[in-house]
């Protein structure tokens, strides 16, 4: 009976949490098209989430693409299929590794930063101050960040895909003996528009989830340094899990149906 009660309490708690996040997401989206808009905050968010994430995204992608080429070459050699390196690197980076790794790097870099910043604002009463100054915290803090992530993360994914493919190209042509022009031709010929579209859509969804989790946990932070720390940790965990779950769903939608 105690076990059942615990299970019931856990289920109810989980459903309540899902409900709160869903309402928060719907509230955020509903403010996208309703003024006032805070252009300066949006521009700062574009810079922080997009431009300043480029180095970490680029480094992650190039090493992943390079390692992928080595793995495919070594694995393909077991059944004389070394020649598929360009195609598998391209499809692997564009369909899966590019969006997922960029999403996870954004969760680590951006979600944590947003959650810590907003949670600190809450603890220091800056959010209450915003309200007393006739400024809606959702419009001023959440909407610019979520909208910026929604726009910039697909672009980061596109850049990550290209750099990842270049990483594979560099290793394949530099150490594995592939012909450069043939590698590029195979890559371009093999990729389909749906691969690229799925990559960009995944980027948009992952960006939305990453920024939303940062804002949600920041806004609902507990008191003190411990509250800020817990909000930051929880936001990254939630963003990472949601990104991976969404990736599974989107992959199913794009390629299995």
């Amino acid at each position, binding site marked *: 009976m105690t076990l059942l009660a615990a299970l019931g309490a856990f289920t109810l708690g989980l459903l309540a949490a899902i409900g709160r996040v869903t309402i928060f997401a719907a509230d955020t989206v509903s403010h996208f098209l309703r003024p*006032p808009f805070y252009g300066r905050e949006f521009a700062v968010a574009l810079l922080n989430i997009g431009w300043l994430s480029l180095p970490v995204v680029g480094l992650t992608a190039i090493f992943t693409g390079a390692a992928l080429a080595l793995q495919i070459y070594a694995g393909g050699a077991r059944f004389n299929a070394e020649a598929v390196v360009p195609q598998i690197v391209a499809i692997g980076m564009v369909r899966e590794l590019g969006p997922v790794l960029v999403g996870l790097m954004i969760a680590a870099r951006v979600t944590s930063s947003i959650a810590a910043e907003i949670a600190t604002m809450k603890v*220091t009463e*800056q959010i*209450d*101050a915003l*309200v*007393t*100054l*006739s400024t809606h915290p959702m419009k001023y803090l959440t909407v610019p960040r979520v909208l910026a992530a929604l726009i910039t993360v697909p672009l980061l994914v596109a850049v990550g895909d290209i750099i990842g493919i270049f990483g594979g190209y560099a290793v394949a042509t530099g150490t594995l003996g592939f012909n450069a022009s043939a590698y590029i031709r195979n890559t371009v010929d093999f990729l389909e528009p749906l691969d690229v579209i799925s990559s960009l859509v995944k980027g948009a969804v992952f960006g939305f989830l990453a920024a939303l989790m940062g804002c949600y946990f920041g806004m609902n932070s507990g008191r003190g340094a411990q509250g800020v720390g817990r909000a930051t940790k929880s936001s990254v965990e939630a963003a990472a899990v949601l990104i991976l779950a969404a990736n599974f769903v989107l992959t199913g939608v794009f390629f299995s149906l």
Partner: protein
Amino acid sequence: MIQLSNVKKSFGNNHVLRGVNLDIPRGTSMVIIGGSGTGKSVALKCILGLVTHDSGTITVDGQPTGKGDRDAFLARFGMLFQGAALFDSLKVWENVAFRLRRGSLKRPKDEARDIAIEKLRRVGLTPDVADRLPAELSGGMQKRVGLARAIAAEPEIIFFDEPTTGLDPIMAGVINDLIREIVTEMGATAMTITHDMTSVRAIADNIAMLHDGKIRWTGPVADMDSADDPHLQQFITGSPDGPIEAVR
């Protein structure tokens, strides 16, 4: 006039406000005193709508709070937060002029900056502070910037939450004097929360003591010392002996 009638607020099983009744006449300075955790800040936040009260009514000039145009309602208020609550990412002048750059009180940028610098001057800060970030200022300077922000739009009602907490006695005296001067010259209605009895005597026209979720005593500051309420007398003298438990 601000009027609280039988206002109650609980957080779970913690019944913070158990029926607060309080009148703050227009143009007067009311100071609310009471021990830590007695609900002073909650009462203040209920008036502003930052916290929703469970029952009872709160009216400002006869109009219930929480109804009507929220922007217009909040435009009547200014607030100095305990830790100043300045926005870290904005320059000092942008903090002061925050309300003047958006909403119903929006002004052009240059005009808003001029007003901000004038308000900074009013609280004793020089114009060169205007382009600094809050983190570059001392605690006392941050309080002054917070005060400048609270008065920037010349509100009818100003709230001060622990205005001298964390300040040395001299800076606390400066802040107390500024509050008194500003409230007097603006003709504003003021509500202050503090534990600092020096502040009480400097700022208040009237005081109210909040204890156990209710107003224990209220009256003019001149009557405070002669009041026969044992809770109030214990608080004024700071004695550990009396009806208020020292360990809570």
